[in-house]
């Protein structure tokens, strides 16, 4: 069986979301590097894989998948279903809840901070400080909910690690490289949960391909 192929650039948080799952699953895969600055994702060859012209894309035999969370679910369903808790109605529901909380509550807040604070200085645009400040205030309210949750269970979906935790890693990796990391660290249970994630071998391995400046500083622009 040919190994799976994952197309994209490793510094992308969407790409990293999938990479962590591949590593957790111990699945055999080949990373096919693409160039963002070279516009590889907009070429016909890539549009044939993903008509939305985005990465990551996974090829698994006859299957070509896109949307990072869909790819993540497929990998875990196939190789490590315990990270989805598919055999338990209540537990799998809690996994789904907190995967969506990341997607719809947390990520929309931290993404603009990462974009304004890390990326914009390199691309010559001005940081929208008002937006950053507004986002930080929203973040504090959101983190109160996470703190309450993580005070009652070790991980987000329960006392077991799952996709719900893993899916948070990649965007948080970049947020925690900004000066606003202390906002997160003020919440002791969130801080402990984050540190537990960082200690996972899968996370360490993927993080090695994610310089805190997306590669801009070293000239390795994706």
């Amino acid at each position, binding site marked *: 069986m040919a190994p799976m192929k994952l197309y994209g650039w490793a510094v992308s948080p969407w790409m990293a979301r999938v990479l962590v799952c591949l590593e957790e699953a111990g699945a055999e895969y080949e990373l096919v590097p693409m160039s963002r600055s070279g516009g590889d994702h907009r070429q016909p060859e890539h549009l044939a894989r993903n008509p939305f012209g985005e990465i990551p894309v996974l090829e698994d035999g006859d299957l070509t*998948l896109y949307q990072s969370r869909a790819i993540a679910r497929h990998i875990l369903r196939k190789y490590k279903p315990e990270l989805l808790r598919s055999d338990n*109605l209540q537990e799998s529901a809690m996994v789904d809840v907190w995967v969506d909380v990341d997607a719809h509550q947390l990520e929309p807040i931290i993404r603009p901070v990462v974009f304004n604070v890390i990326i914009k200085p390199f691309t010559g645009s001005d940081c929208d400080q008002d937006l950053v400040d507004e986002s930080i205030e929203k973040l504090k309210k*959101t983190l109160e909910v996470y703190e309450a949750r993580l005070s009652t269970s070790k991980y987000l979906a329960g006392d077991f690690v799952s996709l719900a935790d893993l899916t948070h890693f990649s965007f948080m990796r970049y947020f925690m490289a900004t000066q606003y990391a202390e906002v997160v660290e003020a919440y002791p249970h969130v801080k402990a949960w984050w540190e537990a994630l960082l200690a996972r071998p899968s996370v360490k391995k993927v993080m090695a391909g994610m310089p805190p400046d997306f590669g801009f500083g070293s000239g390795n622009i994706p």
Partner: protein
Amino acid sequence: MAPVKVFGSARFTNVARVLVCLEEVGVAYEVVDIDFPAKEHKKPEHLARNPFGVIPAFQDGELMLFESRAIAKYILRKYRTDEVDMLREGNLQEAAMVDVWTEVEAHQYNKVLAPIVMECIIYPTAYGIPTNQKVVDESVEKLKKVLEVYEARLSEHEYLAGNFISSADLSHFPFTCRFMETPYASLFDSFPSVKAWWEKLMLRPSMKKISTNLHPKMV
């Protein structure tokens, strides 16, 4: 067995997303209205159900859930039968395609369609905020590009995940239903396969029933 409870008014799109799944699986449910104008969703009783203070929330016995797409998955998983299998989790390839198009709905389609619904209907009628035409115009252009992808997909497959209806199709229902009330509904005329797919969905008893609750006015 006590019927499951959905907290939030049936007039809300994210509540309707859950209700359509309950109708499809044919399970008894109760809708508990949350008084949105009175900010009941921000009060302690509702925060105990949904700590983010939004709607819907969902209760099945002792289990309390939030996030409408997560609730939808739970319902479709728990009440799955051979006849009503909207997640296809018994088949790796089919389940993967369901997940892809469920994510596409959330992050590609809804991202550009929801602002049109919000600006044209929700903000003016529920909040008295005038339509921001710039946002609408930009969103319409982006929606056209997304619909091109949908047209290509639906010209080759009867439904989004394949030749079977799934939660991916259902998830599009509530916001698309409201979109059809805006002046931009005719956009779908340029995408015949998409239009045919939508019209076929709207023939389903679940959609007919739940669409009667999605009124233009929220008050």
